[in-house]
């Protein structure tokens, strides 16, 4: 406490000097503080810098911890599709990664039929140094370059690995809302 008291004394003198200089009172502490998870989220959201093909919607603007994103890939197998995702962030952000789920039933090697996504930076490789922008860009990348070596939908991954032409037509059929290998998919064409 001695060191602390010395520091306090020094600060007090500085504050008094400053007060004399500009007659500015010492202000008490604000009682309604904004928590740091919220500030970080506000920073991440207002500084999103996304390509034109990705848009962000807030169903309830009063609650920024939940929002939806729409990805419309401009090239690749999934061109012309409109893919919707739900993003939710908890009070422990950015220690905990944002949770992202696909809202449609789609045919994709790295996304299963329940909407779970296999993207390393959403789970095992998440770090507080990453931000919302980086995970959304990572998600976008899955549509430009589906990755058959890390599959969540194994059937789709095998097709992509062995016969890319068949995969291309499967993706097209699934995006139209047709059946592929006995499984139905949501129509995602705009």
């Amino acid at each position: 406490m001695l060191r602390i008291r010395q520091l306090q004394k020094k600060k007090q003198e500085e504050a008094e000097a400053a007060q004399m200089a500009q007659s500015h009172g010492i202000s008490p502490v604000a009682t309604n503080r904004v928590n740091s998870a919220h500030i970080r989220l506000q920073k991440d959201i207002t500084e999103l810098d996304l390509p034109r093909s990705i848009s962000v919607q807030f169903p309830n603007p009063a609650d920024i911890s939940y929002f939806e994103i729409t990805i419309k890939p401009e090239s690749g197998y999934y061109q012309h599709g409109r893919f919707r995702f739900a993003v939710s962030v908890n009070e422990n952000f950015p220690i905990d990664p944002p949770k992202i789920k696909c809202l449609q039933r789609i045919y994709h090697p790295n996304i299963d039929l329940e909407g779970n996504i296999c993207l390393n930076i959403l789970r095992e490789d998440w770090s507080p140094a990453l931000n919302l922008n980086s995970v959304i860009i990572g998600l976008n990348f899955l549509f430009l370059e589906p990755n058959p070596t890390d599959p969540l939908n194994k059937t789709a991954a095998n097709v992509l690995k062995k016969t890319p032409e068949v995969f291309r037509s499967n993706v097209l059929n699934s995006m139209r809302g047709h059946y592929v290998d006995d499984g139905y998919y949501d129509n995602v064409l705009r």
Partner: protein
Amino acid sequence: MNPGIDSLLRTIGPYNGAPNEYNYEFAKQQLRSSKILVIGAGGLGCEILKNLALTGFTDIHIIDMDSIDLSNLNRQFLFRKEDINKSKAEVAARFVKSRVKNRFLKIVPYYGRIQDKPVEYYQQFSCIICGLDSVEARRWINATVVAMVGPAMENLVPIIDGGTEGFRGQSRVIIPTVTSCYECTLHMLTPKVTYPVCTIANTPRLPEHCIEWASELAWGQKFSVKFDADNEQHVDWVFEQAQARGRQFHIGGITRSLTLGVVKSIIPSIASTNAIIAASCCNEAFKILTDNNGHLDNYMMYSGDDSVFTYTFEAAKNPGCPVCGTQTKTVRCQNWWTLETFISEMRTMPELQVKNPSLSTAGTKLYFAAPPSLYEATKQNLCKRVKDLVSEDDEIAITDSSLPISLRVKLEFEGPESEPANIDVLVS
């Protein structure tokens, strides 16, 4: 007083930075009068409470929101079987008071959440010792105590934070705004063990993979309600599914207790680790409060899983820390200013350095410059008076792409209630 403690107090520690200013009588007085808050009455908390009382501290407060569970009894030695379901804080306080023979000893328990207490509550303590098991609670208390510090360093309450994880632990001293705070070093946290979804889904090799498959993937396919790790029936279902999956992939060792451990991310708590870390925490409290010896600066890690190893270092302050990197700035705001006026005034304030800021308070989003949907939702606030949106008790959090971190601002309202008709009034 305990003769061992008395002889300690009579000897000036070799690392005392200001031995000439050390005063035995003052130190003795500090021991008797310092008000100490212990947060957590679990594995660490039991040890800390006992140590503080035996050291001779007499004014101790203890908070814990939990009640006693059968599984606590192996290490939380202040509790007995008949105490199950009772408040940890209350039972611990009563037990220590009954065992420690010191007529001055006062222990005040509180059975509830730390968030229930206002800032004024935390201001009354000389020192806070944390024996917590959650990152959220630590972040909360850290942010609260750092925010208490005024511009002249009044209301400075040191935090001593202990933590254990199996055979490892750490203790650290946080002098708010002086040393690094808990938030400064968040990146040093051991990340939670997670497995890639693709491994869980396709190529499980470990019992944990089967359990995560059941709780994260199979559960979602079967049920629409969220999996709850505290619900016994949910855990039973996950356990059965995990076992079935284990048989399919020839993976053994899936037990119910492992299942519970994986879904609740339980790390076994070890009594000896708790005792070592609690001892270090109380040692620091003793040194800080009596000035008898120099205190830890500021982080000690202990590892007991591969022989015994400790390492002490100074965890550096993070200049970009969202909690202690910025002190709340007070900005004067004319009573008649609209939010739009206020934002354009902010752009001209050299101490703020903002270009296109977004602002919010704890309760409301005042103005978001982007993305378009939030701009649309908040732009109607621009023409409202700031005074009608924010009070002097509210802190405004400002983010801006030109700021490496955020700004915390507090307002002081002054001047006329409505825009002066004559521009001369403004100038004068």
